[in-house]
């Protein structure tokens, strides 16, 4: 039966000829990073871009653990935060001694800080994967976060430790005072880190990380010690998390205990998961979306964290592959040219789904603002939280939206099956 002619998966094959496409992607990314602040030049968007860039490095570093090696960490902010603290201390030392070290090198210091801590605690932590690793990472996270409030000389207590990024020697006339110069510094490190982390996945170590993720037991029988593999992955993750921490320290000119805490660790897990851990670019999408939502939602609603929770639950339940997983699911259909047959069913399903989502939003806001608060403004329509008409509208949207959406999504599934069958026949789907 294995001799039966199987349509070759020509589409999925990685040939050396794709190198052009490979460099093309990074070149496009570089151009996008350069041009972005020229198009969106307001101060607000520049600040957002800086935060998103840092979040991208941080989320990608997290995915070295979760997506590549199968290690679920609840304390990744430790390396990020310690990188930030070390960067601040080194910046202050460089400034006071007038050492000839320019600011763009400082993120590397952060990286070394993150890596050094990983080197120190990693060997014990990575002995086992799974629940044991998750619990130890949580414990180390809490340990370091609480120590940061106690060891005042190193961490500066509640207020943290401040620095002045312009006090280092200028480079090419840049003092890094203006935000635009900081943006380009961050953009540079985003590009370098992303390329380095992608390259890491293409090395023997990177491939064995995947093998350890899939089946650590079997790895032992092909000559590798999964413990060493996990330890190395943990150090690389710590290194790039430290770079992100160093950039944050430069961006805010401060490092404080919040950098190290569980909230920060949760946020990066959240970004990587929403973006999709199975693909390299997944966490990039997640970091962009989560940072953007974080910045955007806080000005619209007081319960923005609640929406994060709802989104997270929704992704875990309905799209465990994250955004990248959803996108990549469509690739064979695009290649087979059958995507067009699915889109109409999507459009139909979008209407009740949107109604359902609006119903959920209206319900959440009604509860949140019942005992006082502004009038709810939903798509320009005002709703009063205490009015029974608002409750009725929310109920109709939630229940009606859900019932209709269920039917339409069934249609989507049918259309999908047909399109996938065609794609399979044409050899684009295994």
């Amino acid at each position: 039966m294995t001799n039966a002619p199987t349509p070759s998966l020509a589409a999925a094959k990685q040939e050396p000829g794709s190198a052009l496409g490979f460099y093309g992607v990074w070149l496009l990314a570089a151009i996008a990073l350069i041009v972005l602040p020229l198009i969106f030049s307001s101060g607000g968007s520049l600040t957002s871009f800086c935060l998103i860039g840092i979040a991208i490095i941080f989320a990608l570093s997290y995915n070295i653990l979760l997506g590549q090696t199968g290690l679920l960490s609840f304390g990744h902010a430790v390396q990020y935060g310690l990188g930030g603290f070390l960067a601040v201390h080194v910046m202050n030392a460089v400034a006071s001694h007038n050492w000839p070290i320019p600011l763009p090198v400082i993120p590397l210091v952060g990286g070394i800080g993150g890596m050094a801590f990983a080197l120190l605690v990693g060997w014990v932590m990575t002995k086992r994967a799974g629940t044991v690793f998750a619990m130890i990472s949580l414990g180390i996270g809490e340990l370091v976060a609480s120590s940061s409030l106690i060891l005042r000389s190193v961490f500066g207590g509640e207020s943290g430790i401040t620095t002045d990024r312009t006090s280092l020697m200028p480079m090419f006339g840049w003092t890094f005072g203006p935000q635009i110069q900081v943006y380009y510094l961050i953009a540079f490190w985003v590009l370098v880190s992303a390329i380095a982390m992608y390259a890491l996945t293409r090395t023997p170590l990177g491939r064995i990380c995947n093998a350890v993720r899939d089946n650590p037991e079997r790895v032992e029988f092909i000559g590798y010690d999964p413990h060493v593999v996990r330890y190395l992955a943990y150090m690389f993750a710590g290194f790039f998390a430290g770079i992100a921490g160093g950039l944050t320290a430069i961006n805010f000119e401060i490092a404080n205990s919040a950098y190290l805490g569980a909230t920060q660790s949760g946020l990066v897990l959240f970004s990587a998961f929403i973006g999709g851990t199975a693909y390299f670019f997944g966490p990039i999408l997640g970091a962009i979306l989560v940072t953007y939502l974080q910045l955007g939602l806080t000005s619209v609603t007081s319960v923005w964290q609640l929406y994060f929770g709802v989104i997270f639950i929704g992704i875990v339940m309905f799209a465990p592959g994250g955004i990248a997983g959803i996108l990549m699911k469509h690739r064979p259909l695009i290649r087979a040219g059958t995507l067009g047959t699915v889109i109409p069913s999507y459009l139909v399903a979008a209407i009740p789904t949107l109604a359902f989502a609006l119903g959920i939003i209206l319900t959440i806001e009604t509860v949140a603002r019942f005992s006082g608060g502004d009038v709810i403004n939903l798509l320009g329509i005002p709703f009063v939280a205490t009015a029974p008409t608002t409750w009725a509208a929310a109920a109709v949207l939630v229940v009606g939206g859900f019932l209709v959406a269920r039917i339409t999504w069934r249609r989507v599934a049918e259309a999908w099956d047909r399109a996938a069958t065609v794609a399979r026949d044409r050899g684009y789907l295994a």
Partner: protein
Amino acid sequence: MTAAIQVNAVEKSFGNVQIIRDLNLNVAKGERHAIIGPNGAGKSTTFNLISGHIKPTSGEIRLNGEVTSGLRPFEINRRGLSRSFQVTNVFARMTVWENVRCAVLWATGHRYAFWKNVDNLPEVRQRTAQILDDIHLSHRRDVPAGLLTYAEQRELEIGITIAGGASVIMLDEPTAGMSHAETERAVALIRRLTEGRTLVIVEHDMSVVFGLADRISVLVYGHIIASGTPEEIRGNPKVKEAYLGEEVD
């Protein structure tokens, strides 16, 4: 000449239960050696002991003359022993190509390298392609291993086992659950791929055992009751009584 595998007076207990009692086994270099025995005789435990998956309670195991009992599986693997598993044990989310390539990496000396592009290693690529060709899975190279058919997964299992170029190959029921035609294919594959190497095989299918093995050891209740050529084993009254019964004629 030192034996490929020497098991000397090995005992293994789980709590109070003794699974392996005074196990002695000698496998000469280049030999095809089958271990047979009724269910629960300790065949898989013997495999796990020799490959380092579990450690003996007492006794000594040698690989090519070197003591390996007490070493970790990857240390034993690096000394030239590779094993397959009874239950398919592949890297499910990785492609067939990547499965085999991972098994080639250590043996080609690339170890934990994080400064080399894995796609630019000609030796690794050639060897991976050769093995895929050997196990007839070249046309499935880009399919995730988890999506292969059962028989294909069994072939990949053998491919991963031999990929590192180990001198001693241990196969744990390689044809379990296969149809007759698939079994014949698999036996031909095993015969060809283990040419010039030492093979230890656990198998229930007696036609496979007697067709493939140079020597056979019979394991009953964690103890080897007989060891010899297929003819000797066929004629051994103790074996007939304990295990083979009507199955061999």
